[in-house]
């Protein structure tokens, strides 16, 4: 129960307070008294808790499978140094660093995180984190709406479907129109349709993701960026796999003004979806519209370098209903894990890791498409995942793989009915050649239906 009170303590404290019993402190009116006993988990000793959770773990068999799942949550190697640092109690159990004098260490770490994200995206500033990639997108769109005064947004359909779903949920509250830009035959956002869509200048932002949900590198070409800029529309770039930033052209260099994304890949466990860590980076022009906390560098009364939460007047606890966002708690500890990861990997280690991801994915693409009936659905270059067209329905192929203890990837038909013969397969530095060979062997044993696809 984690309460240290002895009977003697309680008696002495009640005397000081001037009441006779604990019940005198917590009494409530009859009208709101507990109507029925609460039914919660039984109380267990610590060793019994460990046994209980071992049962939950035993019923969670995914770890026994060779996995090619990705699509916004990625398995990567996490050097043990990350947990060794992040689990230090000073970091793990500290409050939001409002009392800067006793939070210099955490504040400096978050300032370093902001710098890492700025350097990786090529943008001027980054915030102290938001919940995850999808909510980062929603917040980024709000920034663009506030910058332009326009209440519609144009989103590539190759943006992660869960991100678009969250954007639509937020849009319901904010009364925003969300329109979609189709993906083209090569798996990239179809630039050809952009011209017509931009004609009446109703969009606050155009949103594209690179690498997109098909794994395709989807940086907008300069001509498209120019057309978007000409209509004073904000270019928002989404990055669901932050590791790609280590090697791919920085979003700022191809025209992104607001870059939103997910940094789980940097030293954070997948953990069935969270906590992960969203980021927002932007040009200086958007600084005042960035939501959430920002750490700044200043000096103390003696002129010594000191870090402090700054520009707080943007935030909910001061500006209330006029705040840039309602966000309060963010993902500080996940951002800390990412910062330690980035520091340990260094630029050389990070670039090497990213290159390994591309190499393993290229190997997977080569070996799988060498099988009869399997092909690349799209031709665009990819980072660490690709849409593979399979003979028959993806769901059937995945079920067959599951019986062979393989999680073969994401059934794209779940989100794109027209792609129900496609599996998004992911390979990272943790995917070995042997894993790929196992996949290929399993796939080759699946009976190919004669009339798989017309």
């Amino acid at each position, binding site marked *: 129960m984690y309460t240290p009170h002895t009977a003697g303590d309680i008696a002495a404290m009640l005397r000081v307070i001037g009441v006779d019993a604990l019940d005198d402190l917590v009494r409530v009116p009859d009208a709101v008294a507990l109507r029925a006993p609460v039914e919660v988990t039984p109380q267990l000793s610590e060793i019994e808790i460990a046994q209980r959770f071992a049962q939950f773990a035993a019923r969670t068999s995914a770890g026994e499978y060779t996995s090619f799942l990705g699509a916004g949550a990625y398995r990567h190697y996490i050097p043990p140094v990350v947990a060794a640092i992040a689990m230090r109690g000073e970091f793990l159990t500290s409050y939001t660093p409002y009392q800067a004098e006793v939070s210099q260490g955490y504040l400096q770490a978050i300032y370093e995180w902001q710098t890492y994200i700025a350097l990786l995206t090529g943008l001027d500033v980054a915030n102290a984190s938001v919940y995850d990639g999808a909510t980062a997108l929603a917040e980024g769109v709000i920034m663009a709406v506030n910058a332009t005064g326009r209440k519609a947004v144009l989103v590539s359909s190759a943006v992660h479907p869960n991100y678009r779903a969250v954007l639509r949920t937020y849009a319901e509250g904010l009364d925003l129109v969300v329109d979609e830009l189709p993906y083209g035959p090569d798996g990239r956002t179809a630039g050809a349709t952009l011209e017509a869509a931009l004609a009446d200048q109703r969009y606050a932002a155009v949103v594209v993701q690179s690498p997109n949900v098909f794994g395709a590198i989807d940086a907008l070409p300069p001509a498209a960026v120019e057309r978007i800029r000409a209509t004073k529309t904000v270019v928002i770039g989404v990055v669901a796999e932050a590791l790609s930033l280590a090697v791919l052209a920085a979003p700022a260099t191809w025209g992104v003004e607001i870059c939103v994304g997910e940094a789980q890949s940097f030293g954070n466990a997948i953990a069935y979806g969270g906590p992960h860590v969203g980021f927002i980076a932007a040009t200086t022009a958007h600084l*005042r519209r960035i939501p959430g906390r920002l750490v700044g560098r200043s000096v103390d009364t003696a002129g010594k370098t000191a870090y402090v939460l700054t*520009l*707080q*007047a943007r935030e909910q606890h*001061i*500006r209330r209903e*006029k705040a840039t966002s309602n966000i309060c708690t963010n993902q500080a500890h996940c951002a800390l894990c990412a910062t330690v990861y980035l520091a340990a990997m260094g630029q050389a280690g990070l670039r090497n890791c990213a290159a390994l991801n591309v190499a393993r994915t290229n190997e997977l693409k080569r070996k799988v498409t060498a099988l009869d009936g399997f092909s690349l659905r799209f031709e665009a270059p990819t980072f660490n995942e690709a849409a593979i067209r399979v003979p028959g329905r993806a769901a059937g192929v995945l079920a067959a793989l599951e019986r062979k203890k393989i999680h073969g990837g994401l059934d794209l038909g779940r989100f794109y009915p027209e792609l129900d013969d496609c599996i998004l397969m992911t390979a990272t530095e943790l995917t070995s050649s042997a894993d790929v060979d196992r996949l290929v062997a399993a796939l080759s044993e699946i009976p190919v239906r004669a009339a798989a696809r017309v």
Partner: protein
Amino acid sequence: MAQPAGLLYSKEHEWVKLDGDVATVGITDYAQAALGDIVYVELPRVGATLEQFGGIGVVESVKAVSDIFTPVGGEVTAVNDAIEADPALVNRDPFGGGWLFKVQLADVSQTDALMSPEAYDQLVSQA
């Protein structure tokens, strides 16, 4: 504390200086002192049409935000870019270099609703 002559005042602590039908608007010395160290001023865009007494921007100090209500309506013809780089100018020289924006008045008679230096002085001395 005497208020500068030749200006008109609003009860929201803004001042107006008329030059024909163009009004220069700022916040008063009383307002800047009450706000403390000003760190940022959000101004209307040039070309925007303002409604008299409408909220048109904010003044931020480190831990507070206050709305700016324009004392006059009309079209914004200029904003003071200098205070973007140096918001402390509003603290140092509220009636001079710390002016906020200029408005082409839609209707000069709207200044009738504003206060004289004496009337404003009385307002703030009661505060």
